[in-house]
């Protein structure tokens, strides 16, 4: 059983570091208010960041495991196809996830 003081200190450190990392760029941005670089980064970063997050999720699909990644890859295909078809983010996410869950739990367990 873990010691309370240790857990409280560890959690406080982790929370403080997380908040500082989230707050730091806003302070930096205030210092660089009229910088064209910040404007350009603001324009390009959102698409770059979501594409990196998507690549991260896709790369963590385990193709050597039980289902050989088939549920997840099918889920990606369903998500993209639905989004191409209806351009409705919620519908695409729900159908893609449903396909993945059904395959992972009942069809390819």
């Amino acid at each position, binding site marked *: *059983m*873990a*010691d309370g003081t*240790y*857990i409280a*200190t*560890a*959690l406080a450190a*982790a*929370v403080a*570091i*997380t908040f500082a*990392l*989230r*707050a*730091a*760029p*806003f302070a*930096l*941005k205030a210092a660089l208010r009229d910088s*064209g*670089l910040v404007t*350009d*980064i*603001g*324009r*390009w*970063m*959102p*698409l*770059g*960041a*979501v*594409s*990196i*997050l*998507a*690549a*991260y*999720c*896709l*790369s963590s699909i385990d193709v050597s495991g039980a289902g050989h990644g088939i549920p*997840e890859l099918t*889920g*990606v295909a369903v*998500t*993209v196809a639905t*989004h191409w078809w209806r351009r409705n*983010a*919620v519908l*695409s*996410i*729900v159908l*893609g*996830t449903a396909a*993945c*869950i059904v*395959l*992972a*739990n009942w069809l390819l367990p």
Partner: protein
Amino acid sequence: MTSIGAIPTGTRKRSDFLAVTRDVGVVWASLFALGIGFGVLVTSHDLPWWLAPVISATMFAGSVEFLLIGMLAAAVPIAAIATTTFLVNSRHLFYGLSFPLDRVKGRIAKAYSIFALCDEAYAIITSSDPATLTTRRISWTQLGLHFSWAGGALIGGLVGATMLSGVKGLDFVLTALFVVLTFDGYRAHRDRTTLILGAAAAAIALLIAPESMLLIAMILFTVALGVRHRTNRRNTDG
């Protein structure tokens, strides 16, 4: 949370909440399900159940919380916990540069928005139509994510390894979310260069440092944007 000054009364509040629920309710639901998984993980490490909602509510940083549980259970030194948190969450350094904090009015609402700036909040809010971004919309989006995650952790910690924890594939929601946001982000501006730079940064990071892929990819991508900025400026100057 009633102290958030930005949340008003009346019907506009209600319609903003409903609009946000319609747009991101599915992501809230998925964070709730993932939160249950986190709560189950906490109790399975012989840590007290209430630690799950406490960590989720105070840190609100999914991936590092999963790592933190293993480290707390193994009683690793605080310095190791601090270093891991710093490395895993360093990618947040790149979010604030483009997050529309100027759309959030009021000191408390701004502070909360920075505190609750997780990957999902950044991705959803920067991908939204800028015209719809108000203090209330942004606050509701983040409060919903935060409460879903902490609420799920509470239920998971209390209920333990039953119910949804046996269902595989729930975390696929986040994969689908980021795929959809990439699709929409590209469609909005047809900015092929950004997409290629992002994909290249991700591929290189996966090759050279798969364990810290997100951080390395964000650094490479930001350096590439710096080079792109200089090249663009040189071209327009000359």
